[in-house]
């Protein structure tokens, strides 16, 4: 009994292309969702109360964990750089290098990782549960636009919270690095701080903050999208949450690269190494 290859309906692509098509389809749907959300941001009613609820959850609620990860990040950077620069007697570069790395790269990225883990998972789970328990349909039958009511406050709050948390991360990490370098590794405060004034410039900070705002917005948009489109009961919510976290993590590093490539292609003139 020979197996007949299943006849393919015209217009239906072969099965092996699925792994290639699936991510593109998701990107397409995500873009449509993004478009809807952006159009809706501009449209009243503006839900200030809900925005503040979300800010409280995303920013205020994340202070402790962001501070803690920042502290350890700064401390370990100090250890590594004191060791590495010690190899060729350049300890005076430790402070500046730590802060450049933090401001441009580590603070925004680590903060956004914390946001994905803590906030993205919560957003996907909450919206997914609302979807599968028909609460989102209920909103619609009561003539309330779910994008306006649920999505917009979350993505705006994310774009505002991420830079604030990044600043906090940066400040605490620098304090931690200073503590280790000066108190434990016996660098003098001057050695640690001196070059920083010359090497770290304000646009290093704003570059990192801008990056964190973009990434924070996108990862919470992804989480909201996954939750909003969840289907199939508790299992579906679980899948949506996993996809939100995985998708968010990939997005962080992809956007990081693109953003950095674009902003570095036109670098700001920088002062010299300093005295």
């Amino acid at each position, binding site marked *: 009994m020979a197996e007949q290859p299943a006849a393919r309906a015209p217009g239906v692509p072969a099965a092996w292309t699925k792994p290639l098509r699936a991510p593109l389809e998701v990107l397409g749907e995500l873009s449509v969702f993004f478009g809807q959300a952006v159009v809706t941001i501009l449209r009243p009613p503006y839900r200030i109360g809900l925005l503040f609820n979300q800010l409280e959850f995303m920013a205020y609620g994340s202070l402790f964990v962001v501070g803690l990860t920042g502290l350890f990040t700064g401390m370990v950077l100090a250890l590594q750089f004191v060791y590495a620069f010690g190899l060729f007697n350049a300890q005076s570069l430790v402070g500046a290098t730590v802060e450049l790395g933090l401001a441009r790269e580590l603070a925004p990225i680590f903060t956004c990782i914390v946001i994905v883990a803590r906030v993205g998972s919560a957003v996907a789970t909450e919206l997914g549960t*609302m979807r599968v*328990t*028909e*609460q989102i*349909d*209920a909103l*619609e*039958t*009561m*003539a*309330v*636009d779910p994008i306006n009511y649920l999505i917009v406050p979350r993505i705006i709050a994310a774009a505002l919270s991420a830079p604030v948390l990044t600043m906090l991360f940066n400040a605490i990490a620098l304090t931690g690095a200073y503590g280790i370098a000066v108190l434990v590794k016996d660098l003098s405060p001057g050695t640690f701080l001196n070059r920083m004034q010359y090497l770290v410039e304000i646009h290093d900070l704003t570059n990192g903050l801008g990056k964190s705002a973009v990434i924070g917005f996108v990862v919470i948009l992804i989480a909201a999208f996954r939750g909003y489109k969840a289907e199939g009961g508790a299992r579906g919510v679980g899948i949506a949450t996993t996809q939100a976290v995985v998708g968010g993590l990939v997005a962080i590093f992809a956007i990081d690269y693109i953003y950095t490539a674009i902003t570095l292609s036109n670098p700001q003139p920088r002062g010299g190494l300093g005295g």
Partner: protein
Amino acid sequence: MTEPMIDVRDLYKSFGGNQVLKGIDLQMMPGTTTVVLGGSGSGKTVLMKHIMGLFKPDQGEVIVDGENISVMDRQELARFRTRMGMVFQSAALFDSMTVRDNVAFALREHTKLSEEEIREKVKEKLAIVDLFGVEEKFPAELSGGMRKRVGLARAIIRDPKIVLYDEPTTGLDPLTTESVDDMIIGAREKLGVTSVVISHDIGSSFHIGDVVAMLHDGRIVEMGPPEKLRHTQEPHTKHFLATWFGRT
């Protein structure tokens, strides 16, 4: 002859390659309760979501209260939906809000009533569904039957002409089922609403329905008052009903 309140004409709907509705024709008269019976996956919820305007038909139209809702845009639909209330299969209460905030939701969104007036209205609607003193509770603190009642109170808060119920009694014990049935009958008697009830609970359907319609394979295969359906010769309906009457 009065005009039907809900007039579904030759409605087709498919998802991907899956043809779910294959030409539904269904009229519902003002002030009556119509029950749509059908097996799992027969398209009952899809039909109801067309009546609510949550889905657009591939073909055919849905006329509600004299207006063709199939051609309305978002804004028109939003305005139109104040005439309809929907009670969901899972009640779909907002679990982050108290019962009062749930029931008052549409009032807070769309009217400028004072807090005093809102409290008064919420109390009045909860009384209609026989609930007292639960305003401060959260949905998680209520039983399944009570949640359905709150869902109905929320659906009728703006005095709709039409109330849609998606499987109001599925998953409830016989006593709670009876009380939800009474709630549906009560809502019709006290408010004069046109009710559409989606169900696969035959006992309930025959109890509350003025008209029972049998949905099978995307079409209405039989429709009429409960007594008529009980003696039907239509094979699918007969088969479906035999599971119930065959045993009693």
